[in-house]
Each structure stands twice: as structure tokens, then as C-alpha cells.
């Protein structure tokens, strides 16, 4: 047990928390943007699978990081565009479309992998690139803190910058305002001639790009190369994080870090000879508990408010 606690304050462990939070944070922010515009993006998982695959293949073939990233984003956008087309234009239930696209992406990625590389498991045949780690001057020299914050992957920093970007977008730009209007009251948007469908499309595309960055991190940062099953439900955990963060960027970031923490803890436990299965279920268990606790807090504060109003009449 002592051993376990000492792991928790180990800078290496805390460093890994941010590392594993990165893909979750991208995907959770993707969900925040989509949900604010009233379009549930359940296809996050599929978007991450496709972007991870396309990024790995793109960087492997072109040997260019930029092109690899571009490929990753295009891969993710294929799925978001399909989602937008079916949900917004053909009026398929958006949740069903999301479920269908996740299945499509998990099978389709294997199909593409085989067509392109003749391998059904991973991109190990290719020399895939990864994003560099960045040492932050001055901070890197601060003991403890420097070890945690400095030297992270470029995309990890971008993920945290994106929290601010999404916040600014939603609350300080016209587009962001319109997205929130469409999400809160599509009728109000229509009444002033805003194109609800186009705005939802925009939200889904932004959401797609954000989730694609998460996918790119998985195959071009967290790992080098794509392997089957590497997204392993992160898209779904991200949905939970966004829900707990009440669709607001900063609280969502905190929720994502909590889940990242659980994920990182499971990595330590693996080192402590706890059976692999129990280790692996921790992040999911924490997510469900988090979801319950959050929903409980929300509903009890609602009840309190009701009681207060009643006693004052």
C-alpha cells in the first residue's frame, strides 16, 4: 500500500496523468462543441479510430508530420461528415447514426488497413512518425513541477490550449454564440434566419477536428503507429466527461483529468501485480461512478431549490 501511495506522488506518475488525459480531453471538448449546438456526437469513438489510422498511415507513407496530421484530420472528418449528412440531411436519429458509424469505423479501419498495407492488425509495416515532446524553458528546471509539466508531447499542450480556444469560441465569437443559440433554442435561431442545419454541421465538423486530434495523438504520440482496438472506448469515456462537465470547457477539462488519473492509476496497479482485468476496468468504473455522483449532485440541488421556493410562497 505504501508502495502504491508513493507511486501517486511520483512526478513520473503525475506526468503520465496528463499524457493519458490528452486523448480524452480532445474528445471531451469535441463533445462539448457538438452538444452545445444540440447535436450529440456519439461517433467520437469512430472518428478517433479513423483519425488514428489515417494519421499513422499518412505519416508513415509521406514521412511528414504535418501531412500525417492532415491525413488524421481528413480521416476523422470522413466520419463526422457522414454523421452530419445522415443526421442532419436524411434525419436519421443522431444517436443511431453515431452507433452505426462506430461499427462502420471499427470494421472499416481494418478493411482499409488490409487494403493499404495487407495487414489486419497494425501499421507495424510502416515507420510512423510521432509528435515531438517539448521542453519548456525555465519551467523545466523547477524541480517536481518541471518534471510533470515540461517535456510533454506537443499535442498534450495543444489539448490544454484547446480548452481555452473552445471557451473563447463558444462565449466570445459570433459563431460560438450561434452554436449555443441553435443548441438552446433552434426556434429562436430560425426566427432570425440562422441556418440551423448549417450551424449544426459546423459544430459537428469542429467536433470532428477536435476528436481527430485526439485520434492523432493516440497513433502519433501515445504510441507510434495504429493498432486495432487502440481507442478502446475513449470516445465513450469522453462523452461521460463532457456530461459531467455540464458541457462547459473548464469543468469538462477537470472531469477529463479525473478519468485520466484513473487510467494512469490502472497503469501503476498493473506494475503492482494486480490482475490485468481489474486494472483495466478501473477507468470505466470511475467513469460510471463519476456519472452517478454528478447526476446525484445535480438532482439534489434541484430538489433543494424547489423546497426553498415552496417555503417562500
Amino acid at each position, binding site marked *: 500500500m505504501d508502495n502504491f501511495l508513493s507511486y501517486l506522488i511520483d512526478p513520473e506518475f503525475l506526468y503520465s496523468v496528463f499524457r493519458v488525459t490528452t486523448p480524452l480531453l480532445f474528445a471531451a471538448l469535441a463533445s462539448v462543441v457538438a452538444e452545445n449546438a444540440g447535436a450529440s456526437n*456519439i461517433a467520437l469513438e469512430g472518428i478517433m479510430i479513423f483519425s488514428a489510422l489515417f494519421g499513422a498511415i499518412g505519416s508513415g507513407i509521406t514521412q511528414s508530420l504535418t501531412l500525417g496530421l492532415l491525413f488524421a484530420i481528413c480521416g476523422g472528418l470522413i466520419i463526422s461528415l*457522414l454523421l452530419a449528412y*445522415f443526421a442532419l*440531411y*436524411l*434525419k*436519421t*436519429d443522431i*444517436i*443511431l*447514426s453515431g*452507433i*452505426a*458509424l*462506430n*461499427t*462502420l469505423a*471499427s*470494421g*472499416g479501419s*481494418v*478493411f482499409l488497413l*488490409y*487494403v493499404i498495407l495487407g495487414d*489486419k492488425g497494425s501499421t507495424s509495416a510502416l515507420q510512423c512518425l510521432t509528435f515531438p515532446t517539448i521542453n519548456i524553458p525555465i519551467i523545466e528546471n523547477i524541480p517536481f513541477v518541471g518534471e510533470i509539466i515540461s517535456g510533454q508531447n506537443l499535442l498534450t499542450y495543444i489539448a490544454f490550449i484547446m480548452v481555452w480556444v473552445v471557451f473563447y469560441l463558444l462565449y466570445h465569437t459570433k459563431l460560438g454564440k450561434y452554436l449555443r443559440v441553435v443548441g438552446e433554442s433552434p426556434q429562436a435561431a430560425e426566427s432570425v434566419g440562422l441556418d440551423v442545419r448549417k450551424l449544426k454541421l459546423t459544430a459537428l465538423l469542429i467536433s470532428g477536428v477536435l476528436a481527430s486530434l485526439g485520434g492523432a495523438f493516440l497513433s502519433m504520440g501515445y504510441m507510434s503507429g495504429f493498432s486495432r*482496438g487502440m481507442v*478502446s*472506448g475513449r470516445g*465513450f*469515456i469522453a*462523452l*461521460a466527461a463532457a*456530461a459531467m462537465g455540464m458541457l462547459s470547457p473548464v469543468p469538462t477539462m477537470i472531469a477529463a483529468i479525473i478519468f485520466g488519473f484513473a487510467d494512469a492509476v490502472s497503469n501503476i496497479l498493473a506494475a503492482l501485480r494486480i*490482475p490485468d*482485468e*481489474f486494472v*483495466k*476496468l478501473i477507468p*470505466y*468504473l470511475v*467513469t*460510471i461512478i463519476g*456519472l*452517478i455522483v454528478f*447526476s*446525484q449532485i*445535480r*438532482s439534489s440541488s434541484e430538489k433543494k431549490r424547489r423546497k426553498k421556493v415552496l417555503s417562500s410562497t
Partner: protein
Amino acid sequence: MRKLSFDSKFEIIRFSVAILIALLLSFIIILLVSDTPFLALQKLYLGPIENLRRFGNVIELAITLSFAGLSIAIIFSSNEFNLASEGAFYASGAVAAMFVLSNSLPAIISPFLSILLGGVVGAVIVTIPAVLKKKWGASELVSSLMLNFIVLYFARYFINNVFKDPSAGYNATYLLPETAKLSKIVSGTRIHSGLIILIVTVIACVLFMEKTKWGFELTQVGRNRQFAKYVGINTSAIVIMSQVLGGFIAGVGGAVETLGMYTRFQWQSLPGYGFDGVIVAILAKNKPRYVPIAAFFLAYIRIGADKMATSTDVTSEMIAIIQGIIIMLVAATAFLSNTRQKMLVKEVRNNG
């Protein structure tokens, strides 16, 4: 013959066009990626009826897909997006295997109890997200997806540690006793007596949905929950009931699959049958009576795809793309809506 209503006439057209588009898409993809496109197409479309054994494979898969489809159809009838059937399939398969390995009950009794136990396990698992939603308002979609992974790893622990056969050479349980297994009923194939259990289950589901008070109430809850509340239906009880039932069927399906198809339990990841169930249920419009047909269709193209993969350079996963497109088109309410509107205007004007 009864005259088809305007809506059913239009539904049939829409359905056919959706399937046609998907088939056309498969045609194009194969032309693009294959060196032997015509062989691939032949194997995809005709592979399953080349011989009895392979047609048997279609039926075997259709049995499992039907259970999954019935489970999801009943769950989705309440308009709840609970996907825990996926985890239920895994867990009940594992529990069924562990049960038959830990006792030596005689034939018939052993599989019977094992399948029943599988059903109960499935019911419990699928009900959890519904209870979480009822009690705390947690989204059933997200919590069921998380639950699937929890169930997977929890059950897998016992498979890979407690019941693991070290001599198997891979992660799997000991050999399942012959007394526990479902007998083969068609020689030359692996079609097993699970088919009979399925037929009974389909009939029971059809009767339940179409002839009982609960099925009626469930249908109304799914169509308009406000209306259901107003007419006095206990909507939360009905919702929970549908999850229990759907979970039970998924559980039976998992147990039947294990005892009918395998010599050991060896699943290391989620089998995907829960999601397949969504495809089947959507194709069947959530109606149990159409589930076997939809499951047969899906099993047919899956086996065709497998056959194609073994004989040509196109992988079976291609079918995932086709499936995805079919479901989204079938579920698309605005798909061909302009055609519908034109047909309707004509019909209204013709009738005065």
C-alpha cells in the same frame, strides 16, 4: 388481400432502395480494391449457398443474431438507448461456461439450468443502466457503454484465472462437458438445438409484444411517453421491464452461443453481438416477428463476406461499411421524403 396502407407501401419502397444502394456500394468497393472482382462478388453473394455446411454457418450465425436482435428490439421499444446487451452476451456466455464446468449435472438439465442462469445474468446487467437512469438520471447510453467494459474485464478475470485450462495453450476455459452442450440437429452442419430455443423465444416475443397487455403498454411508452403517462401506464415499471426482458434474451443468447458453438469459452474481448443486435433491430423495425428475417439477411452477407475473404483479396470487414450505410439509410426518416410527399399529394388530390 388487404389493401396496403400508404405508409406501408412507402416503407417497402424505401427499404428496397436502401438495400439496393448498399449492394451497389459493395459492388463499387469490390471493383475498386479487388484484383478478382467478379470472383469476390460471386463469393459474397452466392458463397453462403455453395454447400450445406456453409448454409449451416448462416443459420448458426442467424441464431445468435436473432437473440441479439430480439434483445435490442425489446429494449429499444421503450425508446431507451441501452446497449448493455453487448456486455450481457459476454457475461452470460462466461457464466454459462463456468456453471457447466463447476457441476456434473446430467444432460438436458445442465444446459437448461446454464441457459437460465445466463438469462438471469443478462437481465441483471442490462437492468443496471436503467436503474442508474431512474435513480440518478445518468444517461443510459453512456453508462451502458462503460458497463460493457466493466463486465468484460470482470468476467474475463474468472475465465483467465479461475477456470483457465493451462494445457489449452491459450487463454480459454477447460473443455465444456459433452452433457452440457446443445446437440446438433442437422447433420453436415453445426446447427444446434439452440434453434429450437430461438423459435420458442421468437414466438414468445411476438406474443408478448402483440398479444399481451405489457407488450401493448411497452409499445405505447416507446411511441409517446407523455401519452403513456397520461393514460395511466406505469412508465418507469414498463421501461425497467423491457430492459429486464431484453437483458434476459441477450443472456440466453450468450449462453446458447457458448453451449452450441464452442468446445471451450475463449472470448477475450466483447463479441460485438450487442451492436449487431442494433443492426438487426433497426432492419426489423423493432418488431420481433421480422427479427429472424433481418438476422438471416445480416448472417447471409456476413458469411458471404467471410467466404469472399478466404477465397479472394477482399477482407470480410468490408461488410462493416455496407452494414453501417444500410442501417443509417433504413433509419433515415427524410430518406426519399420528397418522393413520399409527391406520392402523398397525388393520393390526397385523387381522393378529393
